[in-house]
C-alpha cells in the first residue's frame, strides 16, 4: 500500500512540473502584465523599473529557473497586483471554496443516492420517470443560469435568502466556517443548491444504473431467502456493492466542483479561490494563476489517490498495486 502511495505522489510531482512549465510559457507569451500594473502616465523608465523589480526583464528560461527554485520552497512569488504572497492569497481564500464544495457535494449525495436507489428499484413507476427526466434537466441546465434563477426567485421575489456574500462565520481553531452559524447557512444555501443540482442529477443516474445491475444478482435473492428485511438488504447488501461507481463519479465531480467554483463564486460573490483565479487570469497576474494551478493539480492528484484507496476499502476484491488499480 505504501509503495502505491509513494508512486502516486511521484507521479503527482511530475505532472505538476510539466503543468507549471506549460502555464508559465503560456502566460509569458501573451500580454504584458506591466501595462496592467503601471498607471497610464508611467514613463518608459517607470515601466522598466517595474519590469526589473518583478524580474520580468530576464530571459524566459531564467525566469522559469528562478520560479522553480522558489516553488520548491513553496514560494510562488508575489502577486503582480497586490504584492501579497501568491500562495498566501490563495490559501487565504481556500477554506471558503472547500466549504462550499463539501456542502454542495454533501447535499448532492444525500439527495442523489436515495433517489437513485428508488429509481433503480422501480424502473417503471411514474415517480421514477419523473426523477429521470428531472435528472436530465439537472445536468443540462447551465450552472450559472440555475444560480441566477435561484437568486431571482428566492432572493428577489421572496426575499427569503440573501443573494450574495458569505455572511457570518464561526471559528474552529484557525478556520472560519459558515456552517457554524445560521446566517452562514442562509448564505451558503443558494450557492450550494446551485452546484448540488447538477451533481445530484449525475449521482442519481449512476446510482440507478448500478442499482439495476446489482438487484438481479443472486446475493440479493439469497439475502431475501434468509428472511432479511428490505431495509437491511438495501442498506447493507446493495449499498456497499454500488458504492464503487458512485465513489468514482463522486470523486471526479468533487474535483470538478472545486475547479468550477469560479462560476458560482462569481454569481454569488462568494469569497473563494475561484473568483480570485478569474480576476488573476483577466489581469494576467501570473504568480497567482500559476500558484493556483499547482495547488489544483496537487489537490486533484490527492483526490484521485483517496478515491483509489477507497476502492480497496469498499471492494475487498480490489488489490492495490503499483500499477493501475
Amino acid at each position, binding site marked *: 500500500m505504501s509503495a502505491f502511495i509513494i508512486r502516486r505522489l511521484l507521479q503527482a510531482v511530475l505532472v505538476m512540473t510539466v503543468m507549471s512549465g506549460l502555464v508559465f510559457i503560456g502566460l509569458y507569451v*501573451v500580454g504584458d502584465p506591466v501595462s496592467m500594473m503601471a498607471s497610464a502616465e508611467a514613463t518608459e523608465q517607470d515601466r522598466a523599473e517595474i519590469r526589473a523589480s518583478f524580474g520580468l526583464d530576464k530571459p524566459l528560461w531564467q525566469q522559469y529557473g528562478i520560479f522553480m527554485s522558489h516553488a520548491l520552497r513553496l514560494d510562488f512569488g508575489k502577486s503582480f497586483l497586490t504584492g501579497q504572497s501568491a500562495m498566501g492569497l490563495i490559501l487565504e481564500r481556500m477554506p471558503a471554496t472547500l466549504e462550499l464544495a463539501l456542502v454542495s457535494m454533501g447535499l448532492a449525495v444525500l439527495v442523489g443516492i436515495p433517489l437513485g436507489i428508488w429509481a433503480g428499484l422501480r424502473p417503471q413507476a411514474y415517480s421514477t420517470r419523473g426523477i429521470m427526466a428531472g435528472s436530465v434537466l439537472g445536468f443540462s441546465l447551465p450552472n450559472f443560469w440555475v444560480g441566477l434563477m435561484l437568486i431571482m426567485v428566492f432572493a428577489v421575489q421572496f426575499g427569503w435568502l440573501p443573494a450574495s456574500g458569505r455572511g457570518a462565520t464561526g471559528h474552529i481553531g484557525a478556520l472560519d466556517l459558515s456552517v457554524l452559524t445560521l446566517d452562514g447557512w442562509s448564505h451558503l444555501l443558494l450557492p450550494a443548491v446551485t452546484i448540488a443540482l447538477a451533481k445530484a442529477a449525475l449521482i442519481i443516474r449512476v446510482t440507478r444504473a448500478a442499482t439495476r445491475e446489482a438487484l438481479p444478482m443472486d446475493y440479493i435473492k439469497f439475502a431475501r431467502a434468509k428472511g432479511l428485511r428490505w431495509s437491511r438488504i438495501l442498506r447493507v447488501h446493495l449499498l456497499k456493492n454500488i458504492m464503487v461507481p458512485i465513489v468514482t463519479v463522486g470523486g471526479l465531480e468533487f474535483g470538478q466542483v472545486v475547479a468550477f467554483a469560479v462560476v458560482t463564486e462569481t454569481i454569488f460573490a462568494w469569497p473563494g479561490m475561484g473568483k480570485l483565479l478569474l480576476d488573476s487570469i483577466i489581469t494576467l497576474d501570473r504568480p497567482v494563476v500559476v500558484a493556483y494551478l499547482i495547488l489544483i493539480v496537487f489537490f486533484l492528484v490527492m483526490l484521485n489517490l483517496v478515491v483509489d484507496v477507497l476502492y480497496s476499502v469498499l471492494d475487498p476484491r480490489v488489490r492495490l498495486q503499483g500499477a493501475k488499480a
Partner: protein
Amino acid sequence: MTAEVLLPPLPPPETPWRRLRREFMADRLAVFGLALLVLALLAAVFAPWISPQNPYDIGKLDIFDSKLPPGSRDAADTMTYWLGTDGQARDLLSAILHGMRTSLLVGGVSVAAALAIGSAVGLAAAWFGGWIDALLMRIVDIQLSFPAILVALILLAILGKGVDKVILALVIVQWAYFARAARGAALVERAKEYIEAAQCLSLGWPRLLFRHMLPNCLPPLIVIATIDLAHAIALESTLSFLGVGVPVTEPSLGMLIANGYEFLLSGNYWISFFPGIALALAIVGINLVGDHLRDILNPRNAH
C-alpha cells in the same frame, strides 16, 4: 407450360438507419428533445429573416425603449416587444434568435472539429499501437485530468477574445474525449475478423482505417458528439457569462444572460430569464436526444 408462381416480394430488409429511426421514435422524451433541437436549429438558421428587429443595428435602437417588460409596444408604436427589451433597448426576441445562432454555431463547429481531430488521433493510436499509442494516450490522459473550465479560461486569457478563439479553445478542451472513445472503439474493431480479411487483400492502411474501420466505430462517437455538443454550448455560455468568451458584437446566449445579470436584482428579470430559457431548452433537447441515442446504440442492447 410451367406455371410460374410469383411469390410476394419480401419486405426490404430493415437497414440500420431505419431501425435506428424506429427505435428512436419509440421514446417520447427523445422525440420531444429532437423537436426542441430542430426548433433551435431553425431559429438559428433563419434568425436574420424571422427576427422582428436587427438587434445589432445601433442606429435603429431608441434608448427610450430600453428595459421594457415583455409584451410592451415600442415608443413609435410600430412593433411589440414580445419578450421585452434589454438595457440597450434591443428587442430580446431578436437578440435571442441571433444569440442562439452564435451559441449553436460555436458549439457545433467546435464539436465537429474536436470529433474529427480526436477520432483521427484515437484511430491512429489504436491502429499503430506501441509507443505511438502510449504517447498519444498519455497526452490525452493529462489533458483529461484537468477540469475543462480551467483549461478554457487559461487558453482564452492567452488567446484573447473572439469567436474563432473561443472555438479553438473549445476544440482543445474537447478533442481528448473523442480521442479516448475512438481509440476504445477502434481497439475493439481491430480485433474483429473483417479487418484481418481486408488486410489479406493488402489494402493500404489509410483505406482500411477510413473505409472499413471508421464506419463501425461511429456509433459511440455519435453519442459522445451529441452529449458533447450540449457540454460545448454550456461551456461557451459559461465562458461568455464570465466575460472571457465571445465578444459583445456577436453575443451568444451566455453573453445575453451576463448582460442581464445586473438587472436581476432590480426586478427586470426577463433580460436574463428568456435567453436562459432558450439556452436551457436547446441543451435539454440535445441531452434528451443524446441520452436516448446512447441507450439505443449501447452494444449490450444490440439485438
